[in-house]
């Protein structure tokens, strides 16, 4: 009994360990916070403006739903890439990154088709803010997705130069987290638009 209490006392007095996360991964999370704030601000501006009335009602083009599916699949392939890197399976790693990249491009093309559909149904960037906001949301997300594609290209190059392996996972980790974040960000925007249009 006495020993036990002494041990507990010792545990309590242990000096606090300085937290050491990998700084590069930490930087990524802070970037994500700032991007999140940007979109939080866009969507709350949307809500404030919508509450004032004079709001254009229109149907979201179905292509946005399909593109959502594509992006979810790309997230799965990205995760496959991460697992492959963990197991030093270089072929699978290269294929998975490439597939994710292609799916990302397809997603971008489908978003563009979404814009074409919107224009066909007389919803323009210039006009009622209800329409303008959709273009801003999709456009800003696409802009960030392009940055995600650039990250993927770097990861692919690194994969071919054998710089990503089980003992050096930082780069693929960052690319994966960022890609998942872009996926979740789009899901948020998509369901937000569905619910509040």
């Amino acid at each position, binding site marked *: 009994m006495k020993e036990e209490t002494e041990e507990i006392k010792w545990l309590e007095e242990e000096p606090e360990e300085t937290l050491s996360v990998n700084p590069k991964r*930490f*930087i990524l999370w802070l970037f994500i*916070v700032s991007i999140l704030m940007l979109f*939080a601000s*866009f969507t709350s*501006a949307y809500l404030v403006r919508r509450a004032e009335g004079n709001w254009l009602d229109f149907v979201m083009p179905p292509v946005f739903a399909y593109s959502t599916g594509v992006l979810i699949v790309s997230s799965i392939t990205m995760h496959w890439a991460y697992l492959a890197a963990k197991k030093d399976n270089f072929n699978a790693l290269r294929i998975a990154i490439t597939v994710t990249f292609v799916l990302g491009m397809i997603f971008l093309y489908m978003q563009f088709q979404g814009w074409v559909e919107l224009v066909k149904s007389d919803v323009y960037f210039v006009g009622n*803010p*209800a329409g303008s906001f959709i273009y801003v949301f999709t456009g800003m997300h696409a802009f960030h997705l392009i940055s995600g594609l650039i990250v993927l290209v770097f990861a692919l190059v690194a994969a071919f130069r054998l710089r990503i392996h089980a003992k050096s996972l930082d780069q693929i980790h960052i690319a994966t987290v960022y890609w998942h974040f872009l996926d979740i960000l789009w899901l948020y925007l998509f369901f937000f638009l569905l619910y509040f249009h």
Partner: protein
Amino acid sequence: MATESAVSTLSVHDAEHDHHEELSFWRKYIFAEDHKTIAKQYLISGIVWAIIGISFSVMFRLQLGFPQMKLEFLRPIIGNWIDESGKLDPNFYLALVTMHGTIMVFFVLTAGLSGTFSNFLIPLQVGARDMASGFLNMLSYWFFFLASMLMFVSLFLETGPAAGGWVVYPPLSALPQAHMGSELGMTLWLSSMALFIVSQLLGGINYITTVINLRTRGMSFSKLPLTIWAFFLTAILGLISFPVLLSAALLLIFDRSFGTSFFLSEIYIAGEALPNVGGSPILFQHLFWFLGHPEVYIVMLPALGITSEIIATNSRKPIFGYRAMIASMMGIAFLAFIVWAHHMFVTGMNPFLGSVFMFLTLIIAVPSAVKAFNYITTLWRGNIRFTPAMLFSIGLVSFFISGGVTGLILGNSALDIQLHDTYFVVAHFHLVMGASSAFGLLAGVYHWFPKMFGRMMNEKLGYIHFWLTFIGIYCIFFPMHYIGIAGFPRRYYAFSANDFTKNIFHDMNAFISVMAIVTFSAQFLFLYNFVYSLIKGKKATQNPWQSNTLEWTTPIVPGHGNWPGEIPAVYRWPYDYSKPGAKDDFIPQNVPYSATPESNLPHENELISLEKAIEAQNYNDQFKQPH
């Protein structure tokens, strides 16, 4: 045995050092990744901007104080903005006011203050080799430089720089037809601010990461100097609020350049309706002030942090209420996000909502008062050394209190409706935020100049600079309260139109302008002192202020990596000044309790057993990783 291993790691480090080839001039001084060089770049840029920004205020003060004056002598500087009769062009007056605000708030007190001291002090005080990412840090400065260049270029446009006030409310800022400043000047303003925000985000992300991940052994959050706490919270504020300003700026850019109507609705110009329908100008104000209010604390908190450090050091006393200081800074940082609408009491907002924001706003007085009392109680019966840095810090506390008290008046929505956009507001925020954080900046420069450049600044010039500036600033802003209560609106070119302003307060306005000129001239003393001390100042010793924090354990001019060999471990808080029983009146943070048995308190003696564990802790030493 411990010393033996320390020696061996030390020699390993030295070996690692040797194959760092000498950096070229460009990599060392221009595109530098070293946090100390970047801090100096920010400092110099901030000083240049401050001269420009304050000289603008002197120009419009001439107009306000002496409306009949012939300003021909300004023609060589601002050219045709002085018209044939020798008067200042009213359009350019608006541009001067706008640019003064923009430059001082963003380029001097945000970039110049945070940029300089967060960069310089965070790695040195937490015990790190450099920032988490030197590359991002370099990008941060060069984005700021680009932003500066765009803003600078906009000053020379034929249509003038942005002129809709530093808050750039639409529709005035959104429609080029509204004012000549809303043409190219506004476009450049927005582009410059977008780059500026990117720069601040890159910088802030680095500051947060460094504080969390690169602290040395034993440097727990409860042993961080208050400066670091302040910079840390400032960076978090920036990280959360600057993206919101970016979104507002982007939507405004779309409105201006692509014809969308986020902020525009039903506007007639010369009898013709504009096509924009359905926007809301109030929406912009919400987005703007969601940044704009935290921005006040982004400017203020670093200055308060610097003051805490300087006042404790020069009172030779522990800071009073260390934890209360941290808690009140956290309180201020949190409240900063939920009070923005007190800038918008006159936008026709629901009075109930107004009273909620009023209530939240007035709560800020509590943590602010805690801080003010803590400064005063730290000074109380201290063994005060009146260095120039100390004088400026005390001056800051004085401004913070006298400006803060009028904040209570303005925070009341009923009173604010009367005082909104008068000189009362101008007086309030210049004292509480402008002058105090400028004093924080100056105090910081006087205090850390020896660490930055290895030389001391001249004290006599520092004293003269302080008294002229301190008295000057009170003479400028105290009378402004009266002018504001009398109903004089801010941003007006002349007061000849209203009966209640036509015939009064000429003398007071003239007095304010004279004092503004005196105070501005006094700043050249500082400039002279800065340049002179840089070249010919007295050589600094390693720890000239006998201070406790880690930066004074580095060599007099720290090189790349800050500490030759091992980074010191930290065993105690940074405020062990005048500890009873101790040999000296200060015990640096890296002195273990086992070395000071004469001054240890009973609970500190118990901590001696933990010193081995602290030394064995893991920490991110960037020199141990390949870089």
